[in-house]
């Protein structure tokens, strides 16, 4: 083989390798690793470390600030929940606190209240009975927050973690904000004061 032919062969090989690498760039395969126990495997939240104690004031990428009690454990936000906390009580009981915003009227107060009631195996309400169920509205700097409080059957049959919902509904015109405290009935009741105070601290950044 002459020098020219050898050079052309080498060049053809180089081209084949480069074209092959370019074509296979995104074709990764399944990988297997062994990792020490305790290393977190789930996604790491962008706004705060998982299970970190609640800061006195939080402002994540959600554009919402609040002042949560120190005993509430901040939870990673999710696409649905802009803010989320865990309250742990004695004997493994727990409650979850969440703030969800949805565009427009989000289906109306009655529809949403009945959805929560269904989750606790309670019969749906009509407009008249809803008015009787509503607690005195909470006045906050953001506006009037309607409050409801239901106790029913835990959705998954675990009374340590479910059975009561205290929720606030705030109409901001272009969106509806849902504040929800849900969990063990006793712990939910004991946390109501903190929950109401917390609602009053929530602010939306412009």
């Amino acid at each position, binding site marked *: 083989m002459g020098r*020219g032919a050898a*050079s052309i062969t080498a*060049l053809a090989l180089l081209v084949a390798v480069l074209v092959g*690498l370019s074509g296979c760039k995104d074709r990764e*395969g*399944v990988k297997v690793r062994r990792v020490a126990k305790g290393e977190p495997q789930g*996604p790491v939240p962008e706004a705060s*470390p998982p299970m970190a104690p609640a800061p006195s004031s939080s402002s994540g990428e959600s554009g919402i600030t609040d002042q949560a009690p120190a005993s509430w454990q901040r939870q*990673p936000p999710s696409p649905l929940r802009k803010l989320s906390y865990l309250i742990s009580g004695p004997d493994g009981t727990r409650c979850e606190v969440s703030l969800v915003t*949805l565009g427009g009227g989000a289906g109306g107060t009655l529809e949403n209240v009945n959805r929560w009631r269904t989750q606790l195996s309670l019969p749906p309400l009509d407009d008249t009975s809803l008015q009787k169920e509503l607690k005195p509205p909470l006045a906050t700097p953001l506006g009037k927050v309607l409050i409801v409080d239901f106790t029913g059957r835990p959705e998954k049959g675990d009374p340590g973690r479910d059975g009561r919902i205290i929720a606030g509904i705030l109409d901001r015109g272009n969106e509806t904000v849902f504040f929800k405290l849900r969990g063990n009935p006793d712990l939910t009741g004991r946390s109501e004061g903190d929950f109401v105070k917390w609602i009053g601290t929530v602010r939306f950044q412009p």
Partner: protein
Amino acid sequence: MSKAMRFLLGAVSSLKLTVVCLSAAMVLVFVGTLAQVDGGIHDVQKRYFQSLLVHWPDTPSGLPVFPGGHLIIIVLLVNLLTAHIRRFRWTAAKIGIHLIHGGLVVMLLGALLTDFFAVESTMRLSPDQTSGYAEDQQSCELALVETSGKDFDTVTTIPESLLERGGEITDSSLPFRVVVQSFRRNARFVEPGRPGVESKPAATRGVGARTAVVGVRPATAMNERNVQAAVITLAPLSGSNELLPGSWLTVNDAIEPQTFSYGGKTWALFLRPTRHDLPFRLTLRSFTHDLYPGTQIPKNFSSRVLLADQTHNESREVSISMNRPLRYRGVTVYQSGFLPGDSGTILQVVRNPGFLAPYLGCLLVGIGMVWQFGYHFAGYLARRRRTA
């Protein structure tokens, strides 16, 4: 050499082809830059510059309408190298030209090397937190974690490209088949049953049983990121084609862990940003974020980290700040940002085996130009002396 081969070599090594390639590169850069307005930088980079062909519409089955960045670079490389094969003359007068062309070849190969093998990812650390991996926020992977071991968990990860392709995925580490029912590159989540939205839950088990999924346009802005979602089902490896009961919705965002039992072992499911293991671990000792007095304008970010590498008996504290990255074992760690409320640091982790190519290429081109200029200048002086 046959006549046909000579003709082919002549065409491939012609200056006309060089001009065509450079013109195509200019058009590609122009069109690709405009496309970033709607397509976002990451997608356009892949579609226009890190591909052999630009397809329209943007699917593998779309019509190839223009050469992509990789093809242009490869053709330029071939053009340059064949020109040297055909016209190579080892004379002192040509050394500068050879060095300049050599520098260009190194730069072109370096560009391809970077595209093929460079990995950019981020590491988020809170004080005293340790990590041995970095995450690529642009892509995701499905992690199936077998947690029955005493000291170790076995983590099997399936990349986004396989999830996007759908269908069945098998691996020797998995005692079941993973069947991808659906995959969305960007999704939003609503409570099922809410009036006016999807009433059917996305899956039957875990968080998906109380969540409906709505697909949305992939994120294009630099400050947005996709929230990928996949619905998967498991099927036995052999025997009947019957699926195991239930389906799971996995979301690339922290919702809650989902676990299940199979064959007497416990498994956890996560869809998470793609992880890249590092050959060392970093622990954040402290993070400082200085502002110019009386303003909110950042003056300096810096992270004090403990670098630990058991295989090289390395354990030392280092500072990483805006213009002082950490370089260790082929990995460069830059100070990139900070977590909300200065609660931690964000480090950019780059592994680029071709990082020296631009420096080497520029050096060769520079030496070549100096040689070429100096050689001809010396010849000119010699001729002047002779005529004088």
